[in-house]
């Protein structure tokens, strides 16, 4: 994943609540075995109406999305994060996110910024005609006006995002600790690895 420290540019003034990952990318697009090219299918059902912010050429290619409460709820499909990334979105700002979606976003270098609804309302107003700046290092969202909205972020996630770290690689470095846990586990929860055959294999 690419290191990211700050994102500045246009923002989709979207704001809808409870946007589920089926809306972000419908199941028809999940048949792929690649991570690429999903931007074309992003928000398909909303775009079908022709009057969504995603159809407005003014915001085409915007790197920031301003969304509503519970963004990314529903299915665990990481395709939702890949679709946003393919559209060029690398930061989403919302009052709340589903747990699985925010994890998926983070693992793909997308910053999820949680701000209270009144700040979201203000950003949507500003984003109609102005750029937004998400500064990860200083944990603040600013506008060309006097707005300065600070946000919290998990320190581990911030560190990984700012340095573009590979989480699997980091964990593999802890191999010794995992192996020692496995030894303890083999004693305390020995039954946990007892059976691993299906019915038909047993009878085979």
């Amino acid at each position: 994943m690419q290191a990211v420290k700050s994102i500045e540019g246009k923002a989709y003034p979207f704001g809808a609540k409870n946007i589920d990952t089926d809306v972000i990318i419908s199941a028809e697009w999940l048949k792929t075995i690649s991570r690429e090219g999903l931007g074309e299918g992003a928000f398909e059902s909303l775009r079908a109406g022709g009057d969504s912010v995603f159809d407005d050429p003014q915001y085409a290619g915007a790197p920031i999305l301003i969304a509503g409460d519970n963004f990314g709820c529903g299915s665990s499909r990481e395709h939702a994060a890949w679709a946003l990334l393919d559209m060029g979105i690398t930061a989403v700002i919302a009052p709340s996110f589903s747990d699985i979606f925010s994890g998926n976003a983070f693992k793909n270098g997308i910053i999820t910024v949680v701000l209270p609804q009144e700040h979201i309302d203000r950003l949507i107003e500003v984003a109609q005609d102005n750029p937004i700046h998400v500064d990860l290092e200083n944990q603040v969202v600013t506008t060309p006006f006097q707005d300065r909205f600070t946000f919290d972020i998990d320190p581990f996630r911030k560190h990984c995002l700012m340095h573009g770290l590979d989480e699997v690689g980091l964990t593999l470095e802890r191999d010794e600790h995992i192996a020692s846990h496995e030894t303890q586990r083999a004693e305390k929860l020995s039954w946990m690895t007892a059976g691993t055959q299906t019915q038909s294999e047993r009878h085979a």
Partner: protein
Amino acid sequence: MTYRPRTLYEKIWDDHVVETRDDGTALVYIDRHLVHEVTSPQAFESLRNQGRPVRRPELTLAVPDHNLPTTARLDERGARIPIADPQSAAQLAALEKNAPEFGIQYIDASDVNQGIVHVVGPEQGFSLPGATIVCGDSHTASHGGLGALAFGIGTSEVEHVLATQTLLLRRSKSMEINVTGALGAGITAKDLILHIIGQIGAAGGTGYVIEYRGPVFEAMSVEERLTVCNMSIEAGARAGLIAPDETVFRYLKNRPMAPAGAAWDAALAYWKTLTSDAGAQFDKSVTIDASTVEPTVTWGTSPEDVVAIGGNVPAPASFADPSKQEAAQKSLDYMGLEAGQRIDEIAIENVFIGSCTNSRIEDLRAAADILKGRKIAGNVRWAIIVPGSGLVKAMAEDEGLHTIFTDAGFEWREPGCSACLGMNPDKVPAGERCASTSNRNFVGRQGPGARTHLVSPAMAAAAAVAGHLTDVRELD
């Protein structure tokens, strides 16, 4: 060490922490990993590109389910019938190739053990109480019905688990949902969980692990508990769980992948410690009175949009929150409904009984009880019953349920996710309405433009017979 009362969630968590970092992130060991064709190909591809092996292949089980057509899989000569959609075929072929390449056990589509991952796991005894269970699918929450800590993960996490058998997590907050009293006659686990989601909202459980507590859950079968925990994610909770008890132990005994002999005794001794201690602190407590739960259906496009079958479509103005008013109006427009319309007069053209929420043997028996000696209404164009696994299918056929279904006018299909998600060929046409036992009524979930009403299996069967949503307790 001083004794501190712990919740069931804390107990399972504590026994799986490999190490905790200074920033509070914990490396958590994963006991069981279920893999299906849709969310795994990119993970296997990454492992291959990095030259990384699967750390503990025997702890992962691969089963195709999402993309499989539910029509016949083998021809008369026993040869595999090719899958028409080339992309689906390629994705299924990728799993079939990846599993053996990485040493993972794979259940083939034509194997009697194949089914929806969340039906297969418990049924095989692969899913166990006290285990950490993950899958690249949000309905992994289901396995909490056995007293496991089970949750959905994204593809990057699938890769992380394959490579390290761990996940980097932060401990969630805990919520107890206490259901007091008893459910009325004819009220099912599905009605209860829909009612609960209506009460706490689609984001009410975000950041929490839910423990369902009270006599109603203690009286439930394992199948019913799986239904309840399955839909925890529809309330935003990554996991939901119910303390394991004799009902669970009886269910698991002699399952093919469950521990046996001395290992069973050791497991049982451990499982009996898996309850929240008296005095354990939850971050949030919710109490629901079971006697207020009616047969429940959804009217909108979020699982929180629930109403009792005797009720009416709500007016957007009836919601306090202005953004919910706007969302409700959009939902009504999409669903083709008017505020004030009686719920039990909504006509349906499609009925789907299946999905990881309601495709187990008890669900099929409940549908058969209603359909026995009855026919589907003339306006019902498409009615299918899709068993959750080949074993469920075989059991239903032994009991003669399949002839009740086909006599009533239903199609009897092969196991898979089917019309739950608009991915395989089973879809609801645009503008048409479906009474569905699945878990999501999102815009386009059952196909572009499809209108979903979530219901229990008995209510879906009743709707099929009446041709409209109806109170199963009042069926002629």
